[in-house]
């Protein structure tokens, strides 16, 4: 499968139709699963709807759950547009969370926007650095970035554990986490009475920035060029290796940003396991959104709604929420992959048929209109 098939649908209908049909099919599959376990799917979807979209608080829960997946997916999509696989967003999220925490813990108490601002910048840089490592290894040592970015996830998670259990450990705490941050260090709630914090607005800005970066800048042009053809890009004078390095760094920066929003806006402290596979699910979000920021916003909101809604399921067992999201996520992307495969096969068949018809027409012309010979 070429990157082009994912990123450049031939028509708007094609861009929207396959993902939307896939999501509908995935939700239908989940409904069947719910029937199988003996839940009434209408009741189940009803309680999911209430928990995810029922009132302002529910909606803010869904949006808050969409935010980290959205931001990490934006970065992953940029990498894929360049033909690079950043599988390690989860690790970059942890690095971002740690960097933001370091700023809060070590900087003095400053008037409001300063500490979060510094923390977000630090997180972005830390995420970028974590993404830049596989980037540099790919660019200058020819190492496949899939394995290295994946390995760095576990390094990032373990470093976070170390920080929480050694230098930042709170004596007597039952769970590895820092003390809650003071209000001066947090991202404030923007709609009173809900969970909606400033991070949601930052995520929207990030989506616009990602769109601008890829579609309207020289950098974005180069990203798309090396994603299309690294060799041709080289002839055009693009420094491909430098671009690979930079793209992976930018990709990691978005994930690092996501980590800081989760820590500063949602949790209000660093806590072990604060990213619940958001970075992995973000890969699915990026693909479901067909690598376009607008599509990614939609896909991330869907995942947020499923996550919040799953918590409202009346099955009385923990773990249903996360598993419902993961099943829907996996199925949606799986159906998209199959849909794109079918689309491509149909297109190919049409092309072959057109070519055949042209050949036949040409033969018919050459043989003076004797079609019986042409079809033999």
């Amino acid at each position, binding site marked *: *499968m070429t990157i082009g098939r994912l990123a450049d649908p031939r028509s708007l209908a094609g861009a929207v139709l396959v993902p939307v049909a896939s999501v509908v099919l995935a939700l239908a599959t989940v409904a069947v*699963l719910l029937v199988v*376990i003996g839940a009434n799917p209408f009741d189940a979807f009803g309680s999911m709807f209430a928990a995810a979209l029922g009132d302002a608080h529910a909606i803010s829960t869904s949006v808050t759950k969409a935010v980290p997946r959205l931001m990490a997916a934006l970065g992953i999509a940029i990498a894929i547009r360049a033909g690079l*696989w950043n*599988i390690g967003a989860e690790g970059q999220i942890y690095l971002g969370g740690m960097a933001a925490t370091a700023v809060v813990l070590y900087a003095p108490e400053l008037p409001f926007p300063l500490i979060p601002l510094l923390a977000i910048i630090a997180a972005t840089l830390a995420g970028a650095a974590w993404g830049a*490592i596989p980037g540099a*290894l790919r660019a200058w*040592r020819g*190492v*496949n970035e*899939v*394995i*290295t970015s*994946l*390995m*760095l996830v*576990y*390094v990032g998670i*373990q*470093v976070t*554990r*170390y920080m929480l*259990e*050694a230098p930042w450990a709170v004596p007597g705490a039952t769970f590895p986490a820092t003390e809650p941050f003071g209000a001066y260090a947090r991202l404030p709630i923007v709609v009173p009475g809900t969970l909606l914090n400033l991070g949601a607005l930052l995520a929207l800005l990030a989506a616009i920035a990602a769109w601008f970066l890829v579609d309207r800048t020289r950098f974005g042009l180069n990203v798309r060029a090396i994603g299309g053809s690294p060799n041709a890009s080289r002839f055009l004078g693009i420094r491909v290796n430098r671009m690979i390095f930079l793209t992976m760094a930018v990709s990691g920066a978005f994930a690092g940003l996501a980590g800081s929003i989760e820590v500063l806006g949602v949790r209000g402290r660093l806590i072990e396991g604060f990213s619940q*596979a958001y970075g*992995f*699910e973000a*890969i*699915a979000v990026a*693909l479901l959104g067909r690598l376009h920021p607008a599509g990614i916003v939609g896909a991330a909101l869907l995942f947020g709604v499923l996550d919040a809604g799953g918590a409202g399921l009346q*099955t009385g*067992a*923990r*773990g*249903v929420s*996360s*598993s*419902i*999201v*993961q*099943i*829907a*996520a*996996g*199925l949606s*992307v*799986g159906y998209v*992959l*199959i849909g*794109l*495969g*079918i689309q*491509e096969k149909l297109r190919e068949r049409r092309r072959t048929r057109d070519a055949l018809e042209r050949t036949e027409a040409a033969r018919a012309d050459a043989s003076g209109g004797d079609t019986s010979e042409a079809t033999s």
Partner: protein
Amino acid sequence: MDIDFLTLLLVAAVSLAAPLLIAALGELISETAGVINIQLEAMMLVGAFVGVAGALLTQNIVLAFAGAIVGGLIVAALHGIACFWFRANQIVSGVTLNILALGATTFLLVSVMGADVTQSVARVERIPIPVLSQIPVIGPALFAQNVVVYLAFVAVPIIWWMLDRTSFGLALRSAGERPEAAESLGIDVNRTRWMALAMCGALAGIAGGLLTLGGLGFFTPNVTAGRGFIALAAVVFGRWRPAGTLVAVLLFSVVDAFQIRAQTLGLPVPYQLLVALPYLVTIIALAGFITRMRPPSALGVNYEH
């Protein structure tokens, strides 16, 4: 460091190594044929789950492992359908299957098996080999394991022989290095890759089954906890060779066993950083700072007629 510490360390290391080794050997076969399985973790997880489900249903350890194989094969089949039939990118398919497998096993555990999630099942029994298991230090580690662990280590030379000395191995290697050339020699590349993928699924399923049926005796959500990714790394670190893969797996497992023991003994070692060591070592090795290594040329590239 006393003798007891070393003995226990080795027992733990070999026990940790066996599932990794089985999964890594499967991945090695698959990668040799040009198919990468980022969803190795998913194969292990579904294998572990179906293995426990099979043990609960049949109370028979052999049938339970057969179930584990079926579990791994299901994930392999989904990967093959996506990549070979619908031409999906292998990495995308792998990532998707990981998410799906985690969701599906957790869902089935909570919703179908109910609250009794940590129900214990019959475990595969240890078979100490007389005399040999009495050898100090290495005896308990090498000669007092269960039959699956013994088979894991026996598989290393067998798989080396299969890959290096049989025509099937040659077909696998040519499908992974030069698929076009292989096809022109009459090798059906996609059929060869299906077989390699199936072997990987079966082995990874057994590996998952060994985690639950050989060690824990029950299934918990995400019981594999990233072992599939370690196995992936071991193939790379082992330079796509069976013996190299064995060395990599043993290295990772000794480090892992050491960090567990360091934790329980309260040794002044930042064990979290020790856990990260295998991943770091793999990255450094991949970067060519230790030794030059090259993956199969057509790894991850779908073959289309």
